[in-house]
């Protein structure tokens, strides 16, 4: 087959499709009447209060343009500053409502469009949110430090202990790591699906999960087979270090997602639950440090650059939590949470496969399906289950 013929056959359906679309919008569309009912939909991205004001950020997530005509607060027409009242699809608007709100009381902000449709955003209990100041940046960094960096580094201190373990004990530790990671992955995925249900349909939450989750899984898989092909021996120092980096990357993205949610919680003025919740996360995330360090636990730090690598690994795993609290605290949107949760889930599942292959290369057989391996795996899940109790009620 000649090249031109190949291209012709390849492009033919595309050209015909283009012709069909042109035809559809230049006459045929008149044969297919569109219901004369506006499909309006305004989603509240966020509603919050500051001193003397109720604020809201909204998006037109419907199929048609909308015009915001009136704003009511708790069923009373109210003066409001609307940054943009005529919204095209996916246009955003900021609503600023001067209001003497009462702390702890619920508020319902309703937008009435020019066609009389109503869309409502709720504040279950009004609480002042913190503004982006150096002080709050510092506070959020501190939270991120406690939630991400400290537990990861603490967990990595198990390295010398794990290094002393031989044979079955080491298999056990790696199996525990896999158990931890599976728990984290399933948990992220579950959260992602819950979130996907709640965001406006136009954002296609499940599509984001598929793209983010499967995308990160496949991209990391491609990276690791590329590096493996170059490094040859899967049991080499370089290969193990690569696995550790992949684990750190996966956990880092997961912690970013976690940080987002925590930052957003604090933004709502929920400072009180902080100390208790932070303790829970520290406990929960200490296991992540173990997961990062396990692949390279037996490598010597002396005479190599491993120590520096360990610091970088720790930072990769933990620091994103700080970034997450900042993003979550000041520019939170559930869409971002969903994106990072999905990417994190994909990355973690990829890492599970990496650790699995690492162990097999060490012993030349699949030892995870031995009693020791299974015990380790279940132990990992149980540990996560128990530490998760501190952050769940």
């Amino acid at each position, binding site marked *: 087959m000649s090249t031109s013929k190949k291209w012709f056959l390849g492009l033919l359906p595309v050209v015909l499709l283009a012709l069909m679309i042109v035809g559809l919008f230049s006459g045929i569309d008149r044969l297919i009447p569109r219901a004369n009912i506006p499909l309006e939909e305004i989603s509240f991205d*966020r*509603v919050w209060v*500051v*001193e*003397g*004001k109720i604020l809201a950020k909204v998006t037109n997530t419907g199929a048609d343009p909308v*015009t915001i*005509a*009136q704003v009511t607060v708790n*069923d*009373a*027409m*109210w*003066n*409001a*500053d*609307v940054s943009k009242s005529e919204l095209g699809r996916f246009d955003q608007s900021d609503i600023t409502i*001067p*209001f*003497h*709100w*009462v*702390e*702890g*009381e*619920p508020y319902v902000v309703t937008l*009435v469009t*020019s066609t*009389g449709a*109503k869309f409502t955003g709720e504040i*279950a*209990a*009004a609480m*002042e949110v*913190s*503004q982006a*100041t150096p*002080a*709050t940046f510092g506070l959020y960094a501190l939270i991120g430090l406690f939630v991400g960096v400290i537990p990861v580094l603490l967990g990595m201190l198990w390295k010398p202990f794990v290094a002393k373990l031989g044979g079955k004990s080491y298999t056990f530790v790696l199996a525990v790591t896999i158990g931890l990671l599976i728990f984290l992955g399933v948990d992220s995925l579950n959260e992602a699906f*819950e*979130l996907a249900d*709640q*965001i406006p349909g136009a954002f296609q939450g499940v599509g984001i999960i598929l793209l983010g989750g499967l995308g990160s899984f496949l991209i990391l898989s491609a990276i690791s087979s590329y590096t493996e092909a170059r490094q040859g021996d899967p049991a080499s120092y370089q290969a193990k270090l690569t696995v550790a980096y992949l684990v750190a990357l996966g956990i880092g993205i997961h912690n970013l997602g976690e940080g987002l*949610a925590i930052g*957003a*919680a604090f933004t*709502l*003025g*929920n*400072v*009180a*639950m*902080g100390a208790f*919740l932070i303790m829970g996360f520290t406990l929960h995330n200490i296991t992540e440090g173990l997961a990062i360090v396990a692949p390279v636990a037996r490598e010597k730090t002396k005479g190599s650059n491993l120590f520096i690598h360990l610091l970088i690994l720790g930072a990769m795993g933990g620091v994103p939590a700080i970034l997450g609290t900042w993003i979550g605290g000041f520019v*939170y949107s559930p869409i971002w*949470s969903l994106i990072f*949760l999905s990417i994190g889930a994909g990355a973690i599942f990829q890492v599970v496969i990496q650790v699995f292959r690492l162990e097999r290369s060490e012993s030349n057989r699949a030892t995870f399906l031995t009693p020791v391996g299974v015990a380790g795996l279940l132990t990992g899940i149980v540990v996560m289950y128990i530490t998760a109790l501190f*952050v*769940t*009620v």
Partner: protein
Amino acid sequence: MNKDKQNGSDETFSSFFSRRKFLKAGIGGALGIAGMATWLFPKWIRGEDHMADASNPHDHSNHGGSGMDQVHSMNKKASANAYQSAQQALTTFDYGKVSKLPDGRTLREYTMLAQDNEIEVAPGVFYPAWTYNGTAPGPTIRATEGDLLRIKFDNGSAHPHTIHFHGIHPGNMDGSFEIVQPGKSFTYEFTAEPFGLHLYHCHSMPLKKHIEKGLYGAFIIDPKEPRKKMKELVMVMNAFDTDFDGENEFYTVNGLANAFLDHPIQLKVGEEVRIYLVNVTEFDLINSFHLHGNMFKLYRTGTSLTHYEITDTVMLCQGERSVLEFSYKFPGKYMFHAHQSEFAELGWMGLFEVTE
């Protein structure tokens, strides 16, 4: 205000672990999360609610604040057309085409056209109304007791309608059973009685839909010996369910939310005013009228020339109406509104501006 904000965040930082903040945030914050959460947060964060329930909800403080908010004011004004329509309903009376019958009685002939018409019911909010002569409320029909009324009704709407007048008339002129199909006509003919303030509305089924859509208006029958000459105003209390969920979004007099708040009605000190007040509000059981800084003489249904009481608030069921008479002793701005605060804040509020 910036100063306040600054203080707020500093406090957040410095009292991060303080007991007071713990309680305070425990209540509001965690509840806040429970609410917003539904789409902001993963479950493990939401889990905090239960802890919050246990804490003590005592730290409620009133946020004083900007002082810049003009309560009850709206962010934009209605179109001139919408206001004109409300104003027209306030001060315009349709006396019909007047002629004398051979027996000396007065004949008044009116024409009414049912029309589907989009009207502005609150600034920027448009409602697909069913109207008599293009507006909701329709024209105020006015006659004198004993006149013969001939009302030609043309149905230009896409739906079957009637006109049902309150008052005394034969059963076949009642507009209940003689349904007028789209494109058809019907002429109602009866003698105007008794004197008083009445109303008319469509009586096609489903009745609720035909009334809430805007098919109503005031119907005044003057006594043969006219009432004292005064400045006369018609106020038809109605409401609109703009999203069709069986509850009203906006409450108005004469069809436009806050029409007379944005354009106060001008009066003079001592000027005598008579209001013909009709309630046709659908869905809500009652509506009311409350006058600031004054009392009015209340003539229930306007069927007696002796007032029923002197008051500043009157409550009316759907279909009830009253004539109110008053004059202002002092100059100033005086509100009038429904004394259901909810209705008042959803558009049923106006102002008299009284000058010397």
